C-alpha cells in the first residue's frame, strides 16, 4: 500500500519529500530516492512537494512507470552493490544515511 518514487527523480533528488515524511522512510540512493514499502504508512505527505511529480501511490502509478513499484521494493530486499546484506527495514533513513548505490534498473538508465 505504499507510495513509490518513479523515474523523474533520477539525477534530480530534490529531497523535499524527505523533509515531509513523518516516518523517515525515504532513502537516498546514488542517483534516486526510494520509499521503503515496509515502512511507508501511506499518508501521502510526500506526493505534493515533489517538484518533478515523481511520487504516486503504488495503486496509481502511471503505466510507463509501473516497473518502479517493484524497483522501490528491490532497493530494500535485494543486495545492492557494495553492501554485505539487503537493507530490509532499518527503521529510518537517518539511521543509515545516504546509501550511495542504486538498483540495477536505475543504474542502467
Amino acid at each position: 500500500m505504499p507510495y513509490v518514487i518513479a523515474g523523474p527523480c533520477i539525477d534530480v533528488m530534490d529531497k523535499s519529500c524527505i523533509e515531509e515524511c513523518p516516518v523517515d522512510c525515504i532513502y537516498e540512493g546514488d542517483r534516486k530516492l526510494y520509499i521503503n514499502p515496509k515502512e511507508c504508512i501511506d499518508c501521502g505527505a510526500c506526493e505534493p512537494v515533489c517538484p518533478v511529480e515523481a511520487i504516486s501511490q503504488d495503486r496509481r502509478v502511471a503505466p510507463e512507470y509501473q516497473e518502479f513499484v517493484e524497483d522501490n521494493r528491490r532497493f530494500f530486499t535485494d543486495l545492492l552493490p557494495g553492501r554485505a546484506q539487503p537493507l530490509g527495514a532499518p527503521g529510518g533513513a537517518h539511521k543509515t544515511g545516504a546509501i550511495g548505490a542504486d538498483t540495477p534498473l536505475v543504474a542502467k538508465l
Partner: protein
Amino acid sequence: MTIVDTDLLIVGAGPVGLFGAYYAGVRGLRTAIVDSLPEVGGQVSAMYPEKQIFDIAGFPAVSGRDLVANLVEQAAPYRPAYLLGQEAQDLGRGPANLRVRTSTGTEIVCRAVVVTGGIGTFTPRRLPAGEDYLGRGLDYFVPSARPYEGKDVVVVGGGDSAVDWALMLHPVARTVTLVHRRRQFRAQHASLRHLEESPVSVIRDAQVTVTGGNGVLDHVEITVAGEDTPRRLDCQRLVAALGFTANLGPLRQWDLDLHDNRHLVVDSAMRTNVPGVFAAGDIVDYDGKVRLIAVGFGEVATAVNNAAVHIDPGAQLFPGHSTDNPAPEPRRTTCRT
C-alpha cells in the same frame, strides 16, 4: 510525582485507543489512556482532522475531527482518565501489577496494558532557528487563542494546522503573518479561501532564519527567496506547524517481539509476548493484517476483552451485548500526587 492507580492502561489515544476506552468501560474496568500529544485523536487529529473518512461502519462519511469527538463521547460515561502530553516510557513488571512511567514522571500502576500506539510517538518537527525560545515565545501547538491576544504572531508552515491556527488567531492577535517555505499550500481549499479573505499576511517561498529577543522573543528575521536582505518583523509569539515525525520510541525497550522493526507481534487474542500487555490497531502485525481504522476497532474490542480475563481469570471473555444493559456506574481511576 503523580501515581495513577487503574486496572487497564491504554497507550495511544488515537481512534482505536479511544474505542478501547469505551470497551474497557463496558467491562467495568478503571481505565487510563496516555498519549504523547496534548490532544486526543492520534494520527487523525495530527494529520487529517478535516479529511472525510468513508470506511467507518455505519458512517457513510465522517470527518476525522467528528469521528474523534464521537469516540470521546462514546467512552465518556465510563470516565477514563486522560493523561495527555506525556509519553509512556518504561514498563516495569511486578508479580501482581504492571507499572508504566511516563515522560512527565507520572507512574501508572495497572493490571494490564493495551498498546494502541499506531506508528509511535508523534513529535512536532522542530524549527531550528527558534528552539532557543521554546516556551518563551515559540510554540508547537495552539490549544487556546488566549496567550496570543494583542501579540504579533508569526505562524510557520503550509499545511492544515498552520492555516487553521493563523485563521484562529487573527481575530485576537495584533497581527498574524503566515510564512511558508514553498509557493503552494497543502491545506484544504475551503481554508485557503478563508485565508485569502482574512487579514493574515502571507509570505511564500520564505523561512524564519533568525529569532531574537532579550530572553523573551520579540522579533524574527524572514529570508525570502530572491530577496537580498531578510525581512525583520516584530514577533512575540512564533508558532511552528511543520508537521510531525513518528517513531516507536521507548516501546522498543519493552521486550516486545517486533516485526520489521516497527510492529508488535500479537496472537489471535491480541496478546503480545509480554504477559498482560496486549496491542491493537496499526501498531500490530500478524499474518493477513490490514492497517485500517475499521480493522483496529475490532482488534481493540478483542484486546480489551481478553485483557479483562487476564485481570480477572474468572470473568467471561464475552462482554455481553451493548443492548443488554445501560452503562454501569463508572469506576474511577484514582490519581494522587
